[in-house]
């Protein structure tokens, strides 16, 4: 059996590919690219929420938000660790992110304007992330699939705390409810955009499905998310900002309106409201931390010298 045949047999048997296995070069490159973008999304995703830590309305909410942001850092680290099993260095991925050669999820290029955005992000953005990540627990690459299992457990806390915080807002004063509605109005469409282009316009989908990196198509996942989320909006008494949204008895799914693809591609290309700020902030944090990284290495070398 050739190496490639062995690889195909493992995939066909629904077994996992592990780091030391032979794999097609493009399988490895596709995974590095995807896992790096996933890791970067977790790391950049700390910024919009970090923005509200010092202004959380209660100590309880502040503690929750800090735990959530710390989880995002952890998720980034699990994922960089999974990518490194494919022979790429974490610092290399960081550098490519800083140079704008690597992307992260566009959702983090929207600003967090009110406290209601914290609940809404947990509910919608983490909800959309779970929809995708549950699928990825069945991904053919072992280290990525395992990282997803850990992440999904923690994302469930993220989504539930967000929705619960919105229940509180929506049962508060009319002003609080209006704030929640405003947040939903701003985050609904970008959340649907998180599932990516239509299947017909998705460059890598077909190959990724064949390799079992991806198990469900963009449009199918998006439909799954809409079906799950609309009743949750109803429970909150909030109105989803889509005039074309209605239950389709025949299909057994919600019909919904068309995404503004011009906006989608503009943000992907770097022209969203926060693209420049996010990377500037990331690079500044990295540069300002350089002395810590160097000092830790110097300390380790000094201790080593003292022992031997």
């Amino acid at each position: 059996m050739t190496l490639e045949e062995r690889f195909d047999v493992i995939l066909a048997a629904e077994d996992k590919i592990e780091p030391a296995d032979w794999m097609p070069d493009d399988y490895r490159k596709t995974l590095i690219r995807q896992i790096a973008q996933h890791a970067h999304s977790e790391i950049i995703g700390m910024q919009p929420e970090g923005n509200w830590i010092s202004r959380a309305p209660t100590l309880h909410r502040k503690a929750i938000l800090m735990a959530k942001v710390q989880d995002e850092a952890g998720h980034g680290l699990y994922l960089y660790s999974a990518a490194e099993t494919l022979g790429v260095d974490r610092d290399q991925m960081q550098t490519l992110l800083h140079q704008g050669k690597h992307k992260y999820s566009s959702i983090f290029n929207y600003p967090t304007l009110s406290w209601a955005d914290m609940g809404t992000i947990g509910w919608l953005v983490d909800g959309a992330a779970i929809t995708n990540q549950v699928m990825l627990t069945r991904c053919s690459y072992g280290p990525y699939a395992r990282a997803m299992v850990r992440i999904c457990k923690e994302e469930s806390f993220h989504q539930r705390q967000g929705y619960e915080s919105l229940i509180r807002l929506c049962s508060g004063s009319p002003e609080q409810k209006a704030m929640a509605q405003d947040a939903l109005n701003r985050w609904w469409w970008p959340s649907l955009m998180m599932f990516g282009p239509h299947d017909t316009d998705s460059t890598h989908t077909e190959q990724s499905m064949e390799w079992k990196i991806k198990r469900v198509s963009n449009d199918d996942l998006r439909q799954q998310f809409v079906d799950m989320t609309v009743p949750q909006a109803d429970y909150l008494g909030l109105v989803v900002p889509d005039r074309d949204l209605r239950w389709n008895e025949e299909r057994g799914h919600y019909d919904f309106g068309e995404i503004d693809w011009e906006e989608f591609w503009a943000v992907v290309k770097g022209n969203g409201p926060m693209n420049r700020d996010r990377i500037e902030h990331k690079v500044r944090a990295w540069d300002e931390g350089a002395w810590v990284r160097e000092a830790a290495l110097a300390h380790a070398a000094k201790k080593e010298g003292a022992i031997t």
Partner: protein
Amino acid sequence: MTYEVPVAPGESAELEETADLATEVWPMWEVFVRARRGISHVHIGSLHAADAEAALQNARDVYTRRGEGASLWVVRSSEINAFEPDDISDYVDANEKPYRLATTYEIPDEVGHM
């Protein structure tokens, strides 16, 4: 949502990018966690740290935030020795030596459970 990288019209769909690194980086460590007493340590992932003490502290923060660990080990990744997958999977073909397996021996029912 998708973590596939969208390729905008007119953008290159090139899969691989590389960057030059000037500085020395923290070495990598493999992390093993014993989830609770009574079971073995299990490999859970890896991380970067300047030395063993920092690696342990980072491992505690990254992998046991919800009490998932009763004990932690960290080992420098460069200290791990491993077979290639074929060197171990070709060693024994279970079908070739069935007499090693308990289930290949027939014990009469009247003897009872063995």
